[in-house]
């Protein structure tokens, strides 16, 4: 029996699907986790199915029906151009989901690579990268976002750039510290002494140990990213009108706050429910799978 079979790199004994179901059960057992999962599932489905679920075209203008309160025809009322707010909220969810998935995915990939380089590389490189990470983190996020918007102009891409750049240091740091801790661990030394090459060590041993906490951290970052997208769009620095986004709905609502409360209520609720959902789910995932992370946050 080889060393590898005797001491598997990770402690998972179930196969992928079984482990997933088992984890799901554990999350559902926690009331907060179940509520979070429910909210997240609702959000994801309504955003993904916006094309089928939305009763109206989100950009269809009908001035004669402007600023209406909720009714059977318009579940969440209409905005200042008579557009159906419910349809806009559904399509706004698409934007929020798109930004979170694409931006966090990119940030994860780059952060992972940089963190591995910092952890495995020479000390000067490590120190240099940590300094760069700290420098990037030292801009308050919104300030950084405003500076980026000055450069590239407001757009969905700008929002994603902001998210990716501000999140990379967080993931990079986590990967680096885990890599540093593992680099000289006994089982890695054993692997190395048996002639394992660099890539085997990284993909077979470091990665499986790093990916769990990284994904939990990323799931807890989704509300933050949704907030950034909605916030920047609210300021007029993110998604451009007429594209529906929760932020632009809130912005429109704010301009007409003395005429009708409904756009603000309708634009704010999905933001609140989604951030709550992802927060509850993320916290439960962390508590269930990796209680050690609790201390670092």
């Amino acid at each position: 029996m080889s060393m590898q079979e005797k001491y598997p790199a990770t402690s998972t004994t179930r196969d992928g699907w079984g482990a997933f179901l088992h984890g799901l059960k554990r999350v559902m057992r926690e009331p907060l986790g179940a509520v979070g999962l429910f909210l997240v599932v609702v959000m994801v489905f309504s955003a993904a199915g916006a094309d089928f679920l939305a009763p109206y075209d989100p950009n269809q203008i009908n001035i004669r029906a402007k600023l209406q309160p909720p009714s059977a025809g318009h579940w969440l009322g209409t905005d200042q151009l008579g557009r159906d707010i419910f349809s806009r909220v559904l399509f706004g969810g698409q934007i929020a989901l798109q930004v979170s998935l694409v931006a966090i995915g990119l940030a994860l990939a780059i952060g992972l690579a940089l963190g591995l380089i910092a952890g495995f590389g020479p000390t000067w490189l490590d120190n240099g990268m940590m300094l760069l990470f700290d420098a990037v983190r030292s801009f308050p996020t919104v300030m950084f976002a405003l500076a980026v918007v000055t450069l590239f102009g407001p757009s969905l891409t700008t929002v994603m750039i902001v998210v990716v750049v501000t999140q990379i240091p967080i993931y990079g740091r986590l990967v680096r510290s885990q890599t540093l801790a593992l680099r000289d661990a006994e089982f890695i030394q054993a692997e190395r002494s048996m002639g394992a090459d660099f890539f085997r060590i990284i993909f077979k041993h470091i990665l499986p140990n790093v990916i769990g906490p990284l994904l939990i951290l990323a799931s807890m970052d989704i509300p933050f990213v949704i907030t950034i997208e909605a916030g920047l769009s609210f300021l007029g620095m993110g998604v451009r009108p007429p594209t529906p986004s929760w932020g632009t709905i809130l912005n429109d609502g704010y301009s007409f706050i003395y005429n009708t409360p409904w756009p603000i209520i309708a634009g704010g609720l999905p933001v609140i429910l989604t951030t709550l959902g992802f927060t509850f789910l993320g916290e439960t995932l962390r508590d269930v799978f990796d209680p050690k992370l609790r201390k670092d946050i």
Partner: protein
Amino acid sequence: MWMYFGKRILLGILIVVVSVSLLYTMIHMVPGDPAKTLLGPRASPELQAEIREKMGLNDPLPVQIVKFLGRVAVGDLGQDVFKNKPVYTIVFEQLPHTIYLVLSGIGWAILVGVPLGCVSAVNRNGVVDRVIGLISVSCIAIPTFVVALYAVLVFAVTLKWLPAIGAGDGSFASYVWHLVLPAFALGLGWVGYLSRLVRASMLEVMGESHVRTARAFGLPEPMIVLRYVLRLAVLPTITLIGMGIGILISSAVFIEIVFARPGIGRLIFDAVTSRNYPVVMGSVLVTTILFVVSTTLADLINAILDPRLRSRR
């Protein structure tokens, strides 16, 4: 100890230098001539040349950065060519408004959040603890600008209890009156943060031997909690607030825009929308320095309180 302090302060300075250079490079990567952008398309070539010279745009980029850093070191943040006023003056006119906002927001959050965390820890895993926990996590999760919008909607527009916009007519009472809603919106998330943090650190302290000793001596429980547990447990909150200054400043941007208040957040927002680069640079720089100073201070305080941290990498 001094070695650690020196290193940490040096690192702080280095971070400011690196981030200023990054920002400077970024702003100068912008396509087009800043002088032209500033003056508009109809400006005469002579005027453009004059402004270029005035802004030091004829030097190579690294020279510009070093010159800029040199000026910053002596407190010169450049000139706002629109208003023909030093950027320094403009920034420091607006800064106090933001500082009052941040202090009052964090102030009420401490007054509510710390006792909540305390009650939570004492009733660990009870119903009260769970309810407080749920409220705290919800407070943290809801974005500040949504809280601000809902606060305006409920308390200013619907109930008409409090003013929605502005910073008052100049009198102290009206200034404070106009600060109530913004401070509420800014602080709400921090109530959650602080209550979670105080709860966690109190539970940690409660397990320590000096608390067991106090119990063994038969001291009354309230006295133990207030005198021996809470005193130690509030220390991490100092660090959290120091570290959180960046989040606070970010939230202040939204708050100042929703409530149409003067302040550094609004200043940066206006400067960005009008592409007023000197003001963008100056105000972002000041907030970055503020942020680095407060995180460094928080780190140093932490090092004094917890000697174990000093030896860490």
